[in-house]
């Protein structure tokens, strides 16, 4: 992709690009990468890996199912294989699961699309704004910086029966009751809070684009829209994709906002994470872990598809970097 096409603006160092010294790179590169990668791997293995594996194991067991004669729970652990998983898809559980699955997916699609559009617009405007840029940047940080629990409360306040939302629209909508309006409330609050996340990351991507690229395009007489489509978008795409990808992961695990704003056990906003929480909250750890694992798989599949379909330049480009000749050809194409 076109991500490697530009000359950095003020890089005095790039006077004479020479062919890379391949041998030197490869030599010791393995050991160096091991050294550089190991802290991340260690931290993640300890903080995330170990608990996740423990959870997966848990999902294959059931415990605490029966009471003894004196009313105590018999502490026994029973291996049940995939029973906790099959139980998710049978009987009444299945209805609840598919409802939550639908809600989760619905929130994902709607909120992430809205956030992407709003976030990109924010970034473009911030990038343009000459005066008051610092102020704009500060204000965009605000929704993102407010702790989730607090912003959940703020929105619950806004959406309550005698709250300001109803005062403004002049109707009495019972936002926190089951129904589509509850979904709407979540979407508004969630989009407000997280669009700045995409905005910030995309802005950083925009700042990496050298002005020279645009100057060249302008000489060619490209319209503003064409510049956006042909230059801005491709160049900012990697940053945008990472932002959207991580937003997806968060949106799929949405929990606090529906919980605080609308409340648990309300079908129209129940997400998969909320079901998992509900199970664990009632001490059914095996089923809870099974729900969490199913959600994990769902997220992994979506993330994989996302990267495969859209994100070639995020992940798969490493090899291409090694071919400076190909790159220089492209470079010439754009800046010519």
């Amino acid at each position, binding site marked *: 992709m076109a991500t490697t096409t530009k000359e950095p603006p003020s890089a005095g160092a790039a006077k004479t690009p020479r062919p890379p010294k391949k041998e030197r790179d490869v030599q010791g590169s393995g050991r160096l990468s091991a050294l550089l990668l190991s802290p991340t791997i260690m931290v993640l293995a300890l903080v995330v890996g170990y608990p996740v594996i*423990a*959870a997966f194991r848990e999902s294959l067991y059931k415990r605490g199912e029966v009471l003894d004669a004196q009313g105590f729970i018999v502490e026994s*652990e029973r291996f049940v294989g995939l029973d906790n998983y099959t139980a998710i898809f049978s009987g009444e559980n299945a209805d609840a699961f598919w409802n939550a699955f639908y809600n989760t997916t619905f929130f994902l699609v709607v909120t992430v699309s809205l956030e992407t559009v709003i976030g990109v617009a924010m970034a473009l405007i911030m990038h343009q704004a000459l005066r008051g840029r610092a102020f704009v940047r500060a204000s965009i940080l605000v929704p993102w910086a407010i702790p989730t629990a607090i912003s959940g409360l703020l929105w619950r306040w806004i959406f309550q029966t*005698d709250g300001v939302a109803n005062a403004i629209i002049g109707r009495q909508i019972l936002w926190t009751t089951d129904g589509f309006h509850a979904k709407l409330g979540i979407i508004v609050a969630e989009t407000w809070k997280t669009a700045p996340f995409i905005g910030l990351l995309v802005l950083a991507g925009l700042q990496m684009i050298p002005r020279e690229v645009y100057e060249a395009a302008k000489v060619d007489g490209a319209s503003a829209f064409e510049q956006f489509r042909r230059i801005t978008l491709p160049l900012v795409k990697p940053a945008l994709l990472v932002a959207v990808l*991580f937003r997806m992961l968060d949106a799929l*695990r949405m929990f606090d906002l529906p919980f605080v704003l609308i409340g648990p056990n309300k079908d129209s906003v129940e997400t998969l*994470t909320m079901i998992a*929480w509900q*199970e*664990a909250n009632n001490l059914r750890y095996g089923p809870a872990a099974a729900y969490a694992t199913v959600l994990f798989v769902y997220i992994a599949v979506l993330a994989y598809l996302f990267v495969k379909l859209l994100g070639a330049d995020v992940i798969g480009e490493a090899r291409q970097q090694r071919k400076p000749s190909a790159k220089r050809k492209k470079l010439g194409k754009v800046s010519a």
Partner: protein
Amino acid sequence: MRFTPIVGVVVGLALTVSACGGDDGGDDGGGGTAKQSTEAQLSGRGPITFVSGKDTSGNRQKQVDAWNKDHPNEQARIIELPESADQQREQMIQNAQTKSDAYTILNMDVVWTAEFAANRWLTDLPKSQFDVSAMLPPTVATAQYRDRLYAVPLNADGGLLYYRKDLLDAAGVKEAPKTWDEVWAACDKVTKTSEGKGVSCYAGQFDKYEGLTVNVSEVINGAGGSVVDASGKPTVNTPEAKKGLDVLVQAVKDGRIPKQAITFKEEEGRRYFESGKLLFHRQWPYQYALANKKGTSKVVDKFAVAPLPGVSGPGASTLGGHNLAISAFAKNKATAADFIKFITSEESQRADLLATSQAPPNAALYDDPELVKKFPYLPTLKASILGAKPRPIVVKYGDVTTAIQEETYNAITGKTPSDQALSSLQTKLGQLIQP
């Protein structure tokens, strides 16, 4: 951002961890407790922790300071938990799952006792050591599981019927209503007067949360029904239970309960009552002082309280409140026992009531003239608590209350007919409650 709090989800992992240790997970952990068949010995002296949501007045810290002054070698430290009851329970369970001795005394909601006791997370309290005879019997019942005492009541809560005395007077209704029919009749009279025009008739806590379980249990009990019978079997599929639930269903349908009341928790209802738009309100005692606060409330000195109404006579409140228990994994249980006795003594409870207006379990305080002068609702509250029914004392309380909320919310919002909701609730409860 990325930290979705499902705290609980993998609370269970702790079990994984402990399972590897290969012990059977009884109440080991600390001061050498015996098997559950004999009464636990409370041994061990030294520092303890008092684990609780923050008290609203700061009085608790004063009590702890007083204790610490007299017990230099058995210092108590308060561990404050978040304000939300769900989060308090979560953290207590996490600590139990890891068998941590960080928590000594647990300040628990009355409905958690069975679950905690059945999981052996609590220390069995010898009845010989803890004299609870001076306390109101229904509060003591919430501290027991299968006839064993696992906690000592710290404070009690019972529902009251708040009513607008000024409006009833204006409409010529002399007495507070005792039955639902009287409630609706009084309401019809009041709304016909000029003062009572546009006033909503009745509200309680009807959002889909624990408050709904409380309110529904009350109407069912008030109709002579019950949620579970004395032996613990579910009994919601009865004509009495239906009669009770129908009180709410019908009142929502004909608008006597205003539409927005299905979003009410305690605070939304209180604001509505304080704004003067509500004639009758089922609410906890805490509203009494707040609704009499000048500036915020439009009903200062205009209301009074009565026992909850029933179908053919006075109703029955559901019991709320908190109990103190000792974690099974704690050290220094002897100190903990002394501390509990200290903090639940009549004297401490009196001070507590004065500082926090939290109702005490101690029966004598309700008849103390000085206290009654300050808290005029005490006699009514005493009657309410004495006639109160506990919520089902079951191990899977979380599932039970979710089922009750689910089915009755559907009935109240008109999604399913009440008999259908109750019969499906009966099935669900049958599956959840083990004999």
